């Protein structure tokens, strides 16, 4: 009796080296997390340190002032406005993206054509953003000149919306696909039509995922600089006598463009402005992600998960 107990206890004792691979893997992933955290922290600290002068002394003024040749006056209000308008365009395309995803996932038969479309959407999501800029110039700046007014925030908003659209379609499609089959079958089994199943079960269940995709899209839209450059975001503008519509159709800028412009100015004193503009962009993206997390959590809670 006593003997047996000793043996069994011994066999339960943790032996070092038993799970060496597991330990190595754990160390590796811990290191990876640490590295990622370190990089993010380093970037954040660097930005804040460089921007400190502005953040501490004239943050509100910096947020509320347009760009200027005067270092003490120059700010990013025009960039914030442009980025917000671009984000608004992205949000307007959200129904189109979700609609396309619903069609592809729920309605389209599994034919070579629908597969081709799926593959194309995936490829579109991987196309470098500069290409969307060129597309934007050809279609929105030149082709739809009458609507967009040429190199305007409307053209930029549309181009970036088109850029983000595949991301929304893919993430929404993935969210729809992740809705468990039993849920659908349960609803079908009670005599729901396909649209009723989609509306009352599939969409609500996929909503957190769809929202995440949209937020990722908006965050990406806020950070894109290349398409803005080709479409023609400017470094400085005034609005003169333009009314609201003319302003939408006129010169524009956006936060990434502000950053690029500040970084390009020769004098050292402008570095702080570039860093402060970066800081503003980082905070915005962070806030948007935060809102998404909160909303997602609330929906999940309401769905009882």
């Amino acid at each position, binding site marked *: 009796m006593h003997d047996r107990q000793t043996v069994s206890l011994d066999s339960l004792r943790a032996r070092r080296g038993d799970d060496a691979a597991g330990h190595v893997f754990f160390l590796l992933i811990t290191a990876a997390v640490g590295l990622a955290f370190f990089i993010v922290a380093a970037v954040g600290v660097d930005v804040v340190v460089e921007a400190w002068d502005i953040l501490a002394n004239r943050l509100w003024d910096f947020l509320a002032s347009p760009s200027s040749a005067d270092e003490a006056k120059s700010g990013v209000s025009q960039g*914030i*406005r442009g980025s917000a308008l671009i984000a608004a365009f992205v*949000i307007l395309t959200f129904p189109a993206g979700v609609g396309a995803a619903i069609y592809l996932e729920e309605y389209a038969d599994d034919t070579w054509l629908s597969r081709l479309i799926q593959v194309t959407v995936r490829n579109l999501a991987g196309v470098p953003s500069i290409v969307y800029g060129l597309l934007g110039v050809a279609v929105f700046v030149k082709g739809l000149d009458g609507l967009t007014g040429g190199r305007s925030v409307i053209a930029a908003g549309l181009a970036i919306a088109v850029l983000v659209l595949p991301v929304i379609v893919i993430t929404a499609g993935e969210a729809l696909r992740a809705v468990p089959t039993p849920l659908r079958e349960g609803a079908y089994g009670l005599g729901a039509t396909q649209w009723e199943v989609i509306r009352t079960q599939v969409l609500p269940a996929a909503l957190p995922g769809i929202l995440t995709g949209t937020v990722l899209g908006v965050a990406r839209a806020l950070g894109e600089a290349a398409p803005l450059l080709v479409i023609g975001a400017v470094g400085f503008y*005034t609005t*003169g006598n333009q009314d609201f519509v003319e302003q939408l159709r006129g010169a524009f800028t956006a936060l990434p463009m502000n950053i690029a412009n500040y970084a*390009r100015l*020769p004098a*050292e004193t402008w570095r702080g402005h570039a860093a402060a503009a970066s800081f503003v962009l980082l905070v915005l993206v962070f806030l948007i992600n935060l*809102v998404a997390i909160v909303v997602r959590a609330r929906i999940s809670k309401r769905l009882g998960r």
Partner: protein
Amino acid sequence: MHELLPPSRSDRFRSVGLIVGLLALFALISALVNDDASVTVVAAEPSVDGSTEGDVAPAGPLDGEFLISGSSTVYPIVLEQAEAFSDANDGVAISVEGPGSGDGAQKFCNGEVPIANASRLYKQQELEICEANGIEYIELRRGIDGITVISSPANDRIECLSFNDLYALISEEASGFDSWADANALTSLWDGTAFPDVALDVYGPGEESGTFDSFGEIVIEGVAKGKTGLDTESRDFVTSIRPDYTSSPDDNVILQGIGASDYSIGWVGFAFAKEAEEAGAAKLVQVAKEDGGLCVSPTEETIASAAFPIARFLYTYVNANAAANDPAVIAFVDYMMSDEGLDAVSSAGYINLADSDQLRAQAIWVNRVSGPAWD
């Protein structure tokens, strides 16, 4: 009977509403903030209007809109001028971008912008596009971008460097050279200078800087393209700067490095170099374009007269048609070429033209002389 709760189907869509609403609010607020800001800019300064006398005296406040494109080097000058101009003429919507001289030329010669800046004269093929599109232009010289080679005030052995010497010390071919004598391997190829065996530390602005570009284009590319008398057919020259120099966007940091070692070498914009020399923090090195050529000290005069070789003129092209018909463009260029407007050249860190050039540029504008005017 127990009370059964009514359903609340719309509940979760309220969250979507929340997100959309927040973003809309964000858009609205920023639009408002921006409007406020543009109101604060309004400050009519009648003194600027003085420069518009003569040609066109617009009745009442000016109205109009235009975009200025072109060189990023010239951008800071125009930024200052555009801002001052729009402060005084709040009816004009004016925008400025600086994608580069070449991009600016494309837009200008396609008639997309009435005004474009360049850190060089337009190339033949660019002018051909202008011609093909029936765009006539007024070519205005604006100022000078002068770059100065500096060393430590304690440097008693280096007085003058030729472009070829600078190539041997600072081009990509000089990567890894940590003694001046290392560069002799290159200079000996063209029977140039023999440098002493002292530590070589190189400082300069980062790649994002216009000064970096200008130095690379004028000196390194100049050598590579045979403009300094070297036979470029016989060997391959590189056109880029060595990657292993110490770069900083901060001129003051460059200066610290320069002072820290006796035989340092670096390059900065003229305005800053001059201040540093006056403060005893740097030595301005003379530069000769060709080996054995005339060594020139950088001064306002030598740069303005083009005797000092590391400098380039800055230009503005104005669409002749707009210069005749667009009151807003006319008023802006009037201001740009006025003595007051030209202050922006020096306050942006560049050098004003010699008086003769200045007068000539102003005359070209006043008389609307179109076509090539400078060489």
